[in-house]
């Protein structure tokens, strides 16, 4: 599974960083967007990655094969 952020949708809410800090980071600077830290999601972080998809207010995160 690969984690992908649609930067056109992302508004930098940083909910992904709250629930999956190993996978996503959002800076504090104005206009910051989520960055994917590990595109290939390890097995043990799959649940956290799915949490990030669920909690993203913009629906900007997807997991693709």
């Amino acid at each position: 599974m690969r984690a992908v952020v649609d930067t056109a949708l992302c508004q930098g809410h940083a909910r992904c960083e709250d629930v999956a800090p190993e996978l996503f980071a959002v800076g504090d600077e104005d206009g910051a967007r989520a960055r994917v830290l590990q595109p290939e999601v390890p097995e043990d972080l799959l649940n956290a990655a799915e949490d990030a998809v669920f909690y993203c207010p913009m629906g900007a995160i997807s997991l693709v094969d």
Partner: protein
Amino acid sequence: MTTTTAEVDLQDPYDIADALLNRQALALPGDTPWELYRMLRERNPVFKSRQGMWILTRYADALAALRHPPMDLGPEMRRAAAAGHLVAQMNAATMLYFEDPADTLRQRRLVQQAFNRHSVAALRPMVETLVDGLLTENLERGTFDYLWDFADNIPVNVVCELLGVPRADVPVFRDWTRNLAEATSAVITDEIAQRVQSAVQGLHDYFVDLIAVLRKNPNDRLLSLMIEARDEGNRLSEEELVGLSYFTLSAGSDTTTQLLTHGTIALLQFPDQLRLLRERRDLMPNAIEELIRHSGPVHYTQPRTLLEPLRLGDVEVPAGETVLASVGGGNRDPEEFPDPDTLDIARPRVRHLGFSQGLHLCIGAPIARLEADVVFGAMLDRIAGLEFAETPIEYSDTGPMRSVKRCLVTAEPA
């Protein structure tokens, strides 16, 4: 089952819907509110009430409604604001909650720095010290009211710390928030109205004064950050600053107090789960999500008026209609959560609706989680045995949150 109250026989879906909308249902004992949601979900999952409000009790439908972007949360609130109600004016200035997506985003981005992972982690030592002191005080008493002697003191202190309200002013804030909580009662007596009005005025004037002080002597807390954000780019108006401060307090205090109390009640009702948590402290984050799913205090969200049609299964709800997402109904939908009435702290994938969803997902959720983590952790460390000292628990008719009236417990120190 047939649930009867003095006024209505709750078998008819129209009566159930009325009981939910007039908040009567939330005051019913034990698991009754969830039984009502189940009756609606099984027979009328997308149901239009007598007042014309659509009630959504399936998880998938409630989630779809909360994520449906073209919605207007505020027509009633704006009418009340125009009519001169101070609470409504403060809320109407707080578009995190009520206004259109563009304004919600603009305000969220200004305040979210205070709610990010690092800011929230920095609050932990303060919360730990606070909780430790409160536990010491209450353990000396042995029997105490978990709600009013313990839990109620925590969130207001945390919100004041977050905003940058001086510690010395916290007690008066606590009195205001207690009085404010009555504003959502089903029946507002003149006496309640007076207390609420006086608390609202007090908070409003306090924030106006504090903003003036912080403008001259800024600090690194949320209110100061919001003022600076405003002053640099003229982005938050004075009304917005007062409204956001008020909103942070009202959204962050009573909700979390009730979350801690409902969570503790659920753990006492499922002693096997409390034992499991004691043995498996690594389950704590998941246990907190499960406690919010199973018995979180918020039972439904602000009604939303659809700007575009919303398809829910076989039904298309037309634009212009108002929908109410039943958080309590969705969180106990067996399609999403098997055996939903059982508390299971090891339950996988507890993606509940307790913090809402989509654009209006609770911005303070990480702080509520932090407070729950510190409180439940400290209780496990310091309390060997906890029991109800009075049952049954009574609930009040405030909404959209179900509020415990009081919760007497007896605690044996570890």
